[in-house]
């Protein structure tokens, strides 16, 4: 039952700064997601918190306690490794029992708790297997069970569900959320799945190149991105370039969009971010908007993605529900695209990450 605080946490390799003075707090019982492009330093942060990597600078606090110098085994954190890091010489049961044994759990009690943990990840039947006899997803679930079983005060997850199919993934998410809130575990969760980050987290920490870009609630991040990087990273955005105009932006001669989110002075070159799901699409003539024609239609299950070539402008992707009226427009159809002014994110060219 501890909160987690990072104060100017920094990690450098030689000259490269991998994590650059990162500070944030995870309150007790909260779940914060670390989101950011591959290589931005997420794993590095988790490893420093777990005590596996020495920070170049800054502090890590658990509650009031400065643990920066504390060895890993005295920190009482759980860490699900991106590479699983299962003990290859132990069975699934022994892997999960490992941490429990360290807490003195024995005998029947041990069996019950390992059994429970394995049931939570749907692996009760494979307790006697060795890791190499498991599929990738099964290994990942063992890693999950192993770090959750001892109920650490702080839980760190490094892409714990990346190898699971949608259904199992959703079940596991719910399981994690349930555990985490029941036990009031302070958690930091690295994922590359925005959907997962949004639905699980109390706060999202959006990073890029070792720096925090935004630390806020999921809604805030989605609806009020702090800068061009965030708007370009969250959702499935189209990234276009244009020129700022008074109250809007011009993508190409004649192709203008109104925006009440312009952060640039008129006339400057800007980066325009349009989320695919924000773009409404209708057959030409049925509504006002930018004209174009469908260049490609991609069926995605619940949704359909259209690639629309704007007349005299760039290509733009739009996503509509596959149940909706616009789900079946064939390639070549003339359409118009519209978007509310508050969803047109405009940032100066150089400000875009």
């Amino acid at each position: 039952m501890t909160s987690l605080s990072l104060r100017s946490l920094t990690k450098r390799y030689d000259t490269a700064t991998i994590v650059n003075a990162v500070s944030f707090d995870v309150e007790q019982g909260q779940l914060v997601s670390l989101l950011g492009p591959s290589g931005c330093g997420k794993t590095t942060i988790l490893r420093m918190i777990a005590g596996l990597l020495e920070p170049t600078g800054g502090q890590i606090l658990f509650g009031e306690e400065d643990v920066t110098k504390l060895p890993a085994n005295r920190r009482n954190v759980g860490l699900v490794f991106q590479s699983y890091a299962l003990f290859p010489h132990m069975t699934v049961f022994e892997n999960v029992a490992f941490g429990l044994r360290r807490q003195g759990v024995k005998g029947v009690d041990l069996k019950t708790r390992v059994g429970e943990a394995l049931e939570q990840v749907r692996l009760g039947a494979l307790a006697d297997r060795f890791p190499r006899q498991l599929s990738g997803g099964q290994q990942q679930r063992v890693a999950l069970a192993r770090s959750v079983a001892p109920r650490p005060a702080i839980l760190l997850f490094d892409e714990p569900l990346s190898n699971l199919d949608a259904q199992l993934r959703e079940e596991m998410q719910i399981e994690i959320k349930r555990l985490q809130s029941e036990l009031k575990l302070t958690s930091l969760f690295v994922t590359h799945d925005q959907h997962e980050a949004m639905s699980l987290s109390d706060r999202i920490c959006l990073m890029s190149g070792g720096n925090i870009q935004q630390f806020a609630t999921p809604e805030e991040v989605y609806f009020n991105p702090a800068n061009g990087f965030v708007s370009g990273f969250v959702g499935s955005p189209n990234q276009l370039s244009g020129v700022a105009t008074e109250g809007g932006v011009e993508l190409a001669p004649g192709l203008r969009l109104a925006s009440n989110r312009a952060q640039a002075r008129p006339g400057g070159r800007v980066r325009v971010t349009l989320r695919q799901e924000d773009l409404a699409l209708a057959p030409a003539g049925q509504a006002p908007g930018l004209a174009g024609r469908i260049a490609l239609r991609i069926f995605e299950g619940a949704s359909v993605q259209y690639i629309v070539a704007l007349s005299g402008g760039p290509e733009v992707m739009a996503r509509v529900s596959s149940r909706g009226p616009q789900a079946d427009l064939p390639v070549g159809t003339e359409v118009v695209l519209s978007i509310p002014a508050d969803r047109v994110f405009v940032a100066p060219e150089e400000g875009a990450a």
Partner: protein
Amino acid sequence: MTQSRNAGLGLIGPATVLILAGFLAPTVIMAMLSLRDYSGMQGIGTDWTLSNYINVLGDWFYLEIILRTLALGLIVTLLCLILGFPLALYILRVGPLMQTTAILLVIFPLLCNIVVRSFGWMVLLSPRGVINEALLGAGLISTPLDLMFNLTGVIIGLVQIYLPFMVLLLVPALQNIPADVEAAALTLRSSRIRVFFTITVPLASPGIITGSILVFVLSISALVTPRMLGGPTYRVMATQIYDEFMTNLNWPSGAALAFVLTFIALALIWAANRVAAHLTRGIPA
């Protein structure tokens, strides 16, 4: 697949042929010899007999030597492990320059001829040798320690000789252990010591077993060191076989002893391999 079978035979063929033709064939000659009788002056007889084996296995004098040899092998192996681990860890952790130096210092002792090296030990260990004189001079002891012509001497000598073998096998074995796996154990609240024994050691066990088998086998068949540092009061199988073979010229008896020793050693190796296979059954072969 037949293809891999062929490849396998091609790979193992040359070594197998060499061993069959170069070792097993002459050994068969020796095996036959061990079933002959022998008497001084008449030499090797022409009658078949099991007496050479019966003499060895039915005599407490020999059984004691066998047990002593095995005990010596175990002690030396254990000590090599105990000393080898810190050294291997040091080599893995220290900076590149010192690492190279340390590795060279591990290899050096191997280059000095074993007879000459035993002489070096005698100079160090004898009652008026360097060590005793130093200890006496420092007032730490009042009478010289018995470091030579006994078990202590043999162990000191053998451990020094075979430690490099252990270290050079432990280093790659430890090196191969994925860092994340050890890290995972740390985050599960295991002290470094516990991580070492529950994770590092089992995962290094292929190297540990190899090193141990090697050191064990080498120390039970060592001849010169027990001779020179142990003296005749400390007899082991190897010295006994040597005497039987070379001094008494009683080849049948010497060969029988040799087969007994070999059989015991191979049985132990086999058992150790079994244990190793069990311990590492999770690690992909």
